[in-house]
């Protein structure tokens, strides 16, 4: 029952946050200086057709209404899939279509990078915890520290040029659908994934190491060792599981955070993901599209956060036991 109440509280909090976040993104449009319609359709008011069109857009966006009505209308549209458009004089390009194509690309990039990061960080974290205090540990920690200081766009540019062009091993831009050609799809995703994973590796490794070090000092570990269980089994079988909660939580949270946060990497490698669309919308001053993309990114982030939060609450033995206890 407690769990259900917890859940209920969280769902309420979720709704509040979603509401406020989308309120803010709607508010963004009002911050644009001058008349937003003139910015969206930067064509001189030369003739009837143009004037009519601008009036039409103004009405569509409820720009003459007070802000609460604007927001309500926007919300109604948004949840039914109408996320606005890229506006032109004669026609428009619905944002939803672009977002539909772009979101999976970003999701793939983020998932691959998290997987890669964990695959490398987990063993490294375990090892450095096991060999805590040794030169190996210090060297690895120092390298991780260094990796964190490297801006991801520098890594992206360097990898793109030196690995992609100079060595010619991998493609440096573009995207191929997995369904069309799995091999090419993966080849195109390698460099962006590595770039994104780099800093994640450093963080996860350090997180895991810190938790492992704490776990390894606990009684049940000593007991297992005294029973003669090999170090390897103790590390991987007994110590890793309770220590991995934080890392997995953060990795999960990062999936949400990186959907938008990977915008620079997407742009450098020309991946047609949400980040690229966002950057394009900005360059073209299509602020309605911008608003929608920011909303999408924020909603995804909040939902992922929520999911991870719930999972965490359910899984974490300490919290569960505490609750059971009183």
């Amino acid at each position, binding site marked *: 029952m407690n769990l259900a109440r917890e859940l209920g509280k969280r769902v309420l909090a979720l709704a509040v946050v979603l509401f406020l976040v989308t309120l803010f993104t709607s508010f963004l449009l009002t911050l644009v200086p001058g*008349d937003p319609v003139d*910015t969206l359709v930067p064509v001189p008011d030369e003739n009837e057709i143009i004037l009519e069109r601008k009036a039409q857009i103004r009405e569509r966006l409820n720009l003459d209404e007070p802000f609460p009505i604007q927001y309500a209308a926007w919300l109604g549209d948004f949840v039914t899939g109408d996320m606005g458009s890229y506006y032109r004089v004669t026609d428009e390009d619905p944002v939803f279509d672009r977002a539909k194509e772009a979101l999976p690309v970003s999701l793939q990039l983020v998932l691959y990078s998290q997987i890669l990061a964990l695959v490398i960080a987990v063993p490294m974290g375990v090892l450095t915890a096991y060999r805590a205090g040794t030169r190996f540990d210090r060297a690895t920690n120092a390298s991780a520290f260094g990796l*964190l200081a490297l801006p991801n766009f520098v890594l992206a540019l360097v990898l793109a040029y030196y690995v992609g062009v100079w060595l010619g091993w991998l493609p440096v831009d573009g995207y191929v659908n997995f369904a069309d050609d799995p091999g090419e799809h993966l080849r195109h995703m390698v460099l962006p994934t590595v770039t994104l994973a780099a800093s994640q590796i450093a963080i996860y490794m350090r997180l895991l190491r*810190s*938790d492992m070090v*704490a776990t390894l000092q606990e009684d049940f570990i000593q007991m297992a060792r005294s029973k003669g269980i090999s170090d390897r089994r103790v590390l991987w079988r007994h110590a890793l599981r309770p220590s991995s909660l934080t890392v997995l*939580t953060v990795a999960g949270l990062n999936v*949400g955070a990186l959907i938008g946060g990977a*915008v620079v990497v997407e742009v450098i490698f020309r991946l047609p993901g949400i980040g690229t669309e966002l950057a394009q919308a900005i360059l073209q001053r299509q602020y309605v599209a*911008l608003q929608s993309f920011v909303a999408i990114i924020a909603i995804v982030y909040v939902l992922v956060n929520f999911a991870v939060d719930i999972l965490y609450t359910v899984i974490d033995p300490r919290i569960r036991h505490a609750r059971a206890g009183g």
Partner: protein
Amino acid sequence: MSIETITTDVATAPASEPVEVSGTRKLGPLGWVCISWLVAIVGAAVLAPILPLDDPSESFGEIARQGPGASGHILGGDSIGRDMLSRVIFGARTSLLIAVGAVLLGLLVGGFFGLLAGYVRGRVDTVLTTLFNVFLSIPALVLALSLVAVLASPDPAGQDSISHTRRVVVLILALGIVTVPILGRITRASTLSWAEREFVKAAEVSGARPSRIIFREVLPNVLPAMMSIALLGIAVAIVAEGSLALLGVGVQEEPTWGNIIAGGRRELSNDAPHIVFVPSAAIFFTVLSLNYLGDVIRARFDVREAVL
């Protein structure tokens, strides 16, 4: 924005030992190296106008795209022959101005509200925390990017450009708004734990005014946490400026580390990689130093951001 993620999310993680890089809580030789670098770069940035440097916007045809050492220019020339050394140092001015300005804004506003939330608690806390969470719900770079895009958008009716000063202000504002919730949460968490302490209770009982208690008793103890995150924040802001420059919304009139890199992108394949590498190295060492010192402070003052 990985560091941002870890600071906010470690804040919700169970208590763990702060990870120490060097293994000690003392400053150590490495710490002094970091401080020296920072002093040097900040000093150079501040003193740039009076240092014997070339004009950062003057082109010397013969060093265009030439690497370090060309014609006596220590760090070479950029794509149109401007001296890289002076551009990087003048670039430090604007980049650091933006980064430090943003974090100061975050400290003042976020710190204030964090203290308030952590001390007063109750509904004030709920409201403030919810607000923090709302802004934290938009990935930092995306938030900064959209704020800059919107606020620095030229008026379609007027001339198609906005002034350098305005753009810098917008960048500071946008990056500052992004750091407010982070610093707010850290401050709040730290305040929560310190507000339970004996001496604070004692002060309350003795009838001292809340504002006095907050600023006299609580703040000095919360400061280390704020400072360590602030240093990390400056590092993140420097990188963020670079990202924004690459995305085309950064400063354009004056050099910054970010826009030098952005302009040097195409020169990688023209055998002039130093245009990207030199400012990248500057960023790297500065971020490294800030991170290290931030970590040292955390270890030193035993900063645990463990409270939910």
